[in-house]
């Protein structure tokens, strides 16, 4: 008898192992270093991979459409289009971090914009030349409307124990219907010129739209709260194991109400931003905001099951559909390809999250 020959597959596997070993060793020693462990930890989450995907997409589009995609104009308009969505997605990140979901954000945004615009149009007089007092009132109404819907969502989820999916589907319908009733389905086009100026103004060497700066401030604040404060810690603790949080003495109901209230308030804020950008209530323009926000949050690596949430991921997750949309449009493809691609990425994101969960369950 001759010695048993290793099969072809086996020898290939061995060859690969031999080749890869130095690389693996180098990676191991690298990941022991302070910087290395940071990198390793970053790539154990979805956010880093998604960021890589974003860079690759931008590279590809820039390669296919040189001088058209990464222009100052195109980048600015992409950022402007993404600003409002980012604000509601930050709130959504907290909600989904608790293991919940807020379907109502897009229509709470709309409702807040409508009530805000109507208050500024009070008495039927043209508000174009109104002063800061009227603007401030409109702002307060937008914030207050969003806050009220958010508190309602929170109460229904936390106290009445209605599943978040249904609770916020209910308030979605209610806020949508009421927005249409209040406005008679007509867009209000007259707003104080101060608001329009704000929406059009640019800062930082006159290049970056103010609304983009505001959205970035919201995102950075959200990231700080989520990662560094007790509020953020409780948010993921509740999403990770609500019962454990309750037993640890955390007032889970109150915290859930706060999180939904925050999401609603940010939606109200986004409603006001939308007024500033479009200088009208854009009643028919927010049909998909909620799903886009949720998709962005999930693509960014926040777990559908709760317990893991990242605002940085969400920010990238908001950008990817926008880059796809812009890229496909510039290349002359139908922009609906974006929806196809985003759908696929969404499924992939949730699939990898499930894989990660299953892997660790086996330990």
């Amino acid at each position, binding site marked *: 008898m001759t010695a048993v020959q290793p099969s072809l597959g086996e020898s290939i596997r061995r060859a690969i192992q031999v080749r890869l070993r130095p690389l693996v060793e180098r990676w191991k020693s690298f990941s022991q270093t302070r910087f290395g462990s940071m990198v390793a*930890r970053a790539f154990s989450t979805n956010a880093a991979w998604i960021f890589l995907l974003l860079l690759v997409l931008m590279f590809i589009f820039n390669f296919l459409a040189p001088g058209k995609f990464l222009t100052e104009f195109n980048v600015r308009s992409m950022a402007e289009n993404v600003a409002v969505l980012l604000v509601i997605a930050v709130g959504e990140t907290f909600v989904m971090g608790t293991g919940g979901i807020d379907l109502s954000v897009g229509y709470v945004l709309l409702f807040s914009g409508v009530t805000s615009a109507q208050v500024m149009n009070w008495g039927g007089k043209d508000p174009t030349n109104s002063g800061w007092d009227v603007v401030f009132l409109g702002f307060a109404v937008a914030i207050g409307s969003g806050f009220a819907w958010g508190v309602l969502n929170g109460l229904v989820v936390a106290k009445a124990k209605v599943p978040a999916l249904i609770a916020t589907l209910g308030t979605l319908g209610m806020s949508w219907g009421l927005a249409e009733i209040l406005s008679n389905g007509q867009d209000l086009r007259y707003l104080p010129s101060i608001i329009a100026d704000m929406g059009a103004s640019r800062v930082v060497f006159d290049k970056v739209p103010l609304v983009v700066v505001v959205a970035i401030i919201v995102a950075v604040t959200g990231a700080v*709260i989520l990662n*560094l*404060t*007790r*509020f953020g*810690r409780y948010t*993921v*603790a509740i*999403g*990770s*194991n609500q*019962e*454990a*949080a*309750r*037993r*640890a*003495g*955390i007032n889970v109901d109150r915290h859930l109400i706060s999180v939904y209230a925050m999401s609603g308030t940010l939606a109200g804020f986004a409603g006001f931003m939308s007024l500033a950008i479009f200088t009208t209530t854009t009643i028919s323009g927010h049909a998909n905001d909620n799903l886009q926000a949720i998709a962005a949050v999930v693509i960014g690596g926040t*777990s559908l099951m709760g*317990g*893991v949430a990242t605002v940085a991921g969400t920010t990238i997750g908001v950008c990817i559909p926008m880059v796809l949309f812009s890229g496909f449009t510039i290349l002359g493809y139908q922009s609906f390809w974006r929806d196809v691609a985003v759908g696929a990425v969404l499924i992939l994101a949730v699939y990898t999250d499930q894989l990660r969960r299953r892997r*660790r*369950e086996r*330990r």
Partner: protein
Amino acid sequence: MADPLLQARGIVKNYGHVEALRGCDFDVYPNEIVALIGDNGAGKSTLIKILAGSEQADAGEIYLDGRRIHVGTPFEAMRLGIETVYQDLALAPDLDGSANLYLGREVMMPGFLGKLGFLDNRTMRAGARKAFGELGVDLQNAQSAVANLSGGQRQSVAVARSVAWASKVVFLDEPTAALGVIQTARVLETVKRIRDRGVAAVLISHNMRQVLEVADRIEVLRLGRRVARFDRKGATIEKLVSAMTGGIAEEGAA
């Protein structure tokens, strides 16, 4: 013997038509490990949940240091110095060991930042390292989510959390159920260390050998009542099993 540290008298708890506890008594003395044993459905877990505040008794009284107490929530129990290690661990699996140890009791940054709600993660990590070190738990990666730890390490985190905060009593509901030999020994060692720190430990276990090994005293529940009490010296596996299964008629007869 000293006065009991924790006393339960005539605890009744019904779940619909099921009588989980029917006038159950229970005593814990200072500086002891008392084992609470009984067959499945005897009411051990229910009793612990009531004493730890996560369930409410339908009737009965609880005394701590001779004073009648009302334990309406787990939080109240914790404030009284009563901690529980639950069977299902009650950890937040996505958070790291330090975050779990300090869950609900976070250390805040000093001054203004703390008022704003900023966490002092550095202090908490140092405290966690110390607390885990005391139990001989070596968490190689302290910043790794608890879900990534082995079953034994997870259990150690849960035990460490209770021990770190308890000043009177720690309840341990089947703390070694999911553990290997070495980790079981380590957890039992921890239980002894709890006692040596002047805190009473109540151990629920199905493992009679383990009970006889670590417990100073043993109380037996059957069908929602206490039916027997043993000192470790007077107890044998046969006597315990017999009490659990009804071989001994009622308390006091033994």
